[in-house]
């Protein structure tokens, strides 16, 4: 299988047709990430995936210049870079689009029976703000390190740590209250 770096190189040198392979390779990953951030809203998750890929294409040159030197496993580099872009896309969409309201203040998001098995998780993260949800998902679902999350969200590591711990205690309190 052709590596991500080679596909990036080909895209930069020979045009956007090679980018399609990268899109197909990471489509499910970004869609799942979007679903978890939006609490199971398929339409919003697809928007996040699409916008993230478009933004990734725009900044592909900077990936080659900067991210190549980041100390991460080669096979994770592009995925991590995309995760950072998707995180910022979600943040921007929350700011600009009225339909991305906090989960607990908007009506039930569009439900898809195929994602019903995650319903417990979506209910769990409902009380979290969009920022807390992002940090929580990155830390506890994708197991990213605090320093990596800090880089994705452009916050400092201390702030990330305290926000995650606040989110966690909010969820534990809610969980104990309900059980």
């Amino acid at each position: 299988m052709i590596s991500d770096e080679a596909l990036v190189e080909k895209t930069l040198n020979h045009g956007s047709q090679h980018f399609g392979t990268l899109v197909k390779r990471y489509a499910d990953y970004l869609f799942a990430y979007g679903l978890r951030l939006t609490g199971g809203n398929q339409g919003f998750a697809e928007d996040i995936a699409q916008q993230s890929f478009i933004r990734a294409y725009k900044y592909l040159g900077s990936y080659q210049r900067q991210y190549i030197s980041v100390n991460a496993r080669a096979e994770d580099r592009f995925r991590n870079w995309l995760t950072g872009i998707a995180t910022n896309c979600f943040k921007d969409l929350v700011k600009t689009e009225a339909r991305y309201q906090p989960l607990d203040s908007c009506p039930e998001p569009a439900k898809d029976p195929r994602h019903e098995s995650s319903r417990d998780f979506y209910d769990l993260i409902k009380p979290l703000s969009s920022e807390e949800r992002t940090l929580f998902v990155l830390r506890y679902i994708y197991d990213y390190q605090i320093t990596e999350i800090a880089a994705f969200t452009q916050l400092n590591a201390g702030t990330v740590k305290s926000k995650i711990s606040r989110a966690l205690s909010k969820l534990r309190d809610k969980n104990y209250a309900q059980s």
Partner: protein
Amino acid sequence: MRNLESILNAEKSQQHQLDNPDLLAFSVLTEIARLESKARLRTRLIAGLALALAASAIIIQLITLSAVNIDLVGMVHGLARHINDNPFLITSINLGLATIILITRKQSLF
């Protein structure tokens, strides 16, 4: 209610898949092509305006030079005399404008 850890573990092992990744790839590539063609059009528009400006400048110079023997009033006469008195200056300006036009054509910007 299941406890927090078991919910997180269940979600971690959950696979979420798009119905049609090909459709997403198609829509992303189409949008990229649209944005690129928009950017190309904008560049061509700017180049076109610069070209039109350069061409207008040359035409105005020619008109002004041909009017040097006619007793025109005020600014036109002064400008014509100034251009006539500085042939090297006007030649270099013309050379610059012609170079802009040639580069624009060579780069297929317009």
